């Protein structure tokens, strides 16, 4: 079957080789194109490597301060209820600096869609440890590896959200073609919840950051499969 880049991907992206952000962005571009809602969408960008989608993807974008997407999306939806409002964010922004805003949007069940790229580090600033950093993981600020005693336990926000009254919650990844297909279905479902007025949806995507993990891109994919997925299980957790 013929396959080519959706026209919304207007130019080459700025991500490192093998970066998972760019794999997600293309999937989102495909879904927006297939649902024919490119012109009906306003994205809300976090700060971080993830924000570079706005340079290669032709979609209207608002950039609030780092981590404040939950609050910004609520405001955007109030002003433009006719538009699809979604956010592309990093784990550092959505689950650390912006955790309050993210959870507030979820507890209000705002009719918006949150895509969180979890690469277990603050990538753009040099790969520092985040609340999502894995047990034992080396980072530029946990050079002997993360320990629960010294740094606290790895924070699993998807688990935390499972009892909330929200429309959709899923965790997926981009490690192979089968997982990419599942991720694409989750993206579509999350946007459909917003279309149907069902409320808040969050899709967490486990994405590789080969640069800060110090791995080749294929090794980074295997690291997700072998070390992240057993700890952060994939699946759809809420589907109302």
């Amino acid at each position, binding site marked *: 079957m013929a*396959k*080519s880049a959706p026209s919304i991907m207007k130019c080459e992206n700025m*991500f490192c080789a*093998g970066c998972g952000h760019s*794999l997600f962005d293309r999937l989102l571009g495909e879904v927006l194109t297939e649902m024919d809602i490119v012109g009906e969408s306003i994205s809300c960008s976090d700060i971080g490597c993830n924000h570079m989608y706005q340079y290669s993807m032709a979609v209207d974008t608002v950039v609030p301060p780092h981590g404040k997407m939950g609050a910004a999306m609520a405001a955007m939806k109030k002003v433009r209820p006719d538009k699809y409002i979604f956010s592309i964010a990093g784990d550092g922004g959505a689950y650390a600096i912006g955790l309050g805003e993210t959870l507030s949007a979820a507890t209000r069940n705002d009719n918006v869609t949150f895509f969180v790229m979890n690469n277990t580090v603050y990538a753009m600033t040099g790969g520092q440890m985040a609340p999502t950093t894995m047990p034992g993981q080396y980072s530029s600020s946990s050079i002997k590896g993360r320990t629960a005693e010294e740094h606290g336990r790895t924070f699993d926000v998807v688990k935390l959200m499972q009892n909330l009254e929200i429309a959709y919650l899923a965790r997926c990844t981009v490690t192979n073609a089968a997982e990419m297909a599942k991720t694409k279905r989750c993206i579509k479902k999350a946007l459909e919840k917003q279309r149907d007025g069902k409320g808040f949806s969050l899709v967490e995507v486990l994405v590789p950051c080969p640069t800060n993990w110090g791995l080749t891109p*294929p090794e980074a*994919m295997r690291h997700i499969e072998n070390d992240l997925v057993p700890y952060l299980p994939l699946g759809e957790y809420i589907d109302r």
Partner: protein
Amino acid sequence: MQSETMEKVKVNEERCKGCYLCIASCRKGAIRLSGRTNKRGIVTVAVDQALCVQCGVCYTMCPDLVFEIL
């Protein structure tokens, strides 16, 4: 019927950043290093059109939109 040598996948070598996820993903072993270097200084990839079955895995796994399945 498609001939073994017809072009099945177009490769935009200038976009390649050298992650080689395509080589790791192609189950037919149809993708290898081309031996050519693009403007970024990256050794690019080439598709053996005879081995290719147009499954589209390279398109799916390429973060840089190098491949077009024809």
